């Protein structure tokens, strides 16, 4: 084992790590937003739109992320969608994550007691106010653990972006290993980085959960 290479490649690895975190954050936010829109459209939209969205969910959940990225990045230019690696990667993450988030939101909506919605209707709340003030707050709290869980899964999907040349941590580590031939050290460093990242996020997620479910307990 030779660890000196880390001194030389340290800054590059940190840059890659920064990009990994950025891709993860933006990808999570975008796909969560798209997932929420899909879930709402499935709840309130016209039937043909619902079928279309259901097909979208099935197709994206049934195909590997790697294949989706290949279609987007290498197939895209043929139909006029010419994107750089980073935007293509972000778009890919957004598309890949959205159906999973949509399903999480859908089961969150199901957890809202129907009586609360009916009560809101009975006192004359318009539908968009019901969504904003009754449906979403209750659904979000019950969906929180699943949302955190899938965000963690997305962290690990970001390494696949390296295959379409997004220069995130995995890409930098591979560059380091092909330049120095220290494959084992490089991949060990990578594993440790991710373990730390995922453990930190899940600790934070658990804290957030106890914080928020705290408000669920009814007080006399």
């Amino acid at each position: 084992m030779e660890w000196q290479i880390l001194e030389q490649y340290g800054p590059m690895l940190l840059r890659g790590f920064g990009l990994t975190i950025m891709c993860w954050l933006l990808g999570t936010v975008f796909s969560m937003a798209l997932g929420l829109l899909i879930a709402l459209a499935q709840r309130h939209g016209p039937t043909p739109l619902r079928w279309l969205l259901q097909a979208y969910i099935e197709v994206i959940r049934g195909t590997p992320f790697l294949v989706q990225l290949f279609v987007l990045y290498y197939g895209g230019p043929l139909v006029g969608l010419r994107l750089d690696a980073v935007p293509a990667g972000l778009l890919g993450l957004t598309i890949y994550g959205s159906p999973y988030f949509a399903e999480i939101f859908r089961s969150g909506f199901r957890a809202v007691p129907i009586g609360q919605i009916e009560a809101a209707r009975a006192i004359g709340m318009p539908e968009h106010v019901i969504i904003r003030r009754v449906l979403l707050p209750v659904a979000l709290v019950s969906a929180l653990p699943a949302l955190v869980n899938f965000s963690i899964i997305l962290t690990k999907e970001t390494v696949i972006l390296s295959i379409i040349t997004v220069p995130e941590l995995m890409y930098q580590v591979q560059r380091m290993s092909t330049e120095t031939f220290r494959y084992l050290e490089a991949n060990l460093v990578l594993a440790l980085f991710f373990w730390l990242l995922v453990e930190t996020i899940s600790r934070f997620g658990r804290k957030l959960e106890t914080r928020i479910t705290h408000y669920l307990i009814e007080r006399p």
Partner: protein
Amino acid sequence: MFSIPTFLDSFGPLFWAARYTLLVSGLGIALGLVIGALICAARLSGVAFLRTFAALWVSFLRGVPLLVQLLLVYFLLPVIGIDVPALVAAVVTVGICASAYISEIWRGAIGALPRGQTEAARAIGMGPGDVWTRIVLPQAVTMSLPALINELILLVKASSLVSVVGIMEITRASQAQAATTFRPMEVYLAAACIYLMINLCLAALGRYLEHRMAV
């Protein structure tokens, strides 16, 4: 622009390559079931050392991306002097990775059994071995079936990653096909269709099992 003949022609070689996808995910889940059972047993055992080991095992394997685990095993084995074909390395890695998730699925299923059942079994004089083989395991295994099918679907998709260590499964075969035909869109869409077919079948199987269990 979109060449239908190329799209249709790619199905032949890709279907042929699908056998590696099925092999890696099938053997992967089989290995995962075995190791997962051991890890789950260690996690629930009374020995503190085993419990810590199992917890670390699960935390590491769930915290590190499968792609990184694959490369780690692929480059680690030669260093410690073990020379195995890429296919074996890939199946072992996929199996080990799956074992972490499967052990958690089983732990959840066992935890979901009402305590009263084991207590009742003990009260009528069953030994701990009987309680496990006749009360806990049959129910926990049936209960966990839909989750295990779900895990298998995830593995079929995850097996696309073993293309990076050179195994000619669907994704690797479509890369080769795309490089020779210069029509990536058609080829990758054909690959997506094959994955979708496999996974829709598995999902239907999962729904069937879930339905049967609900009755």
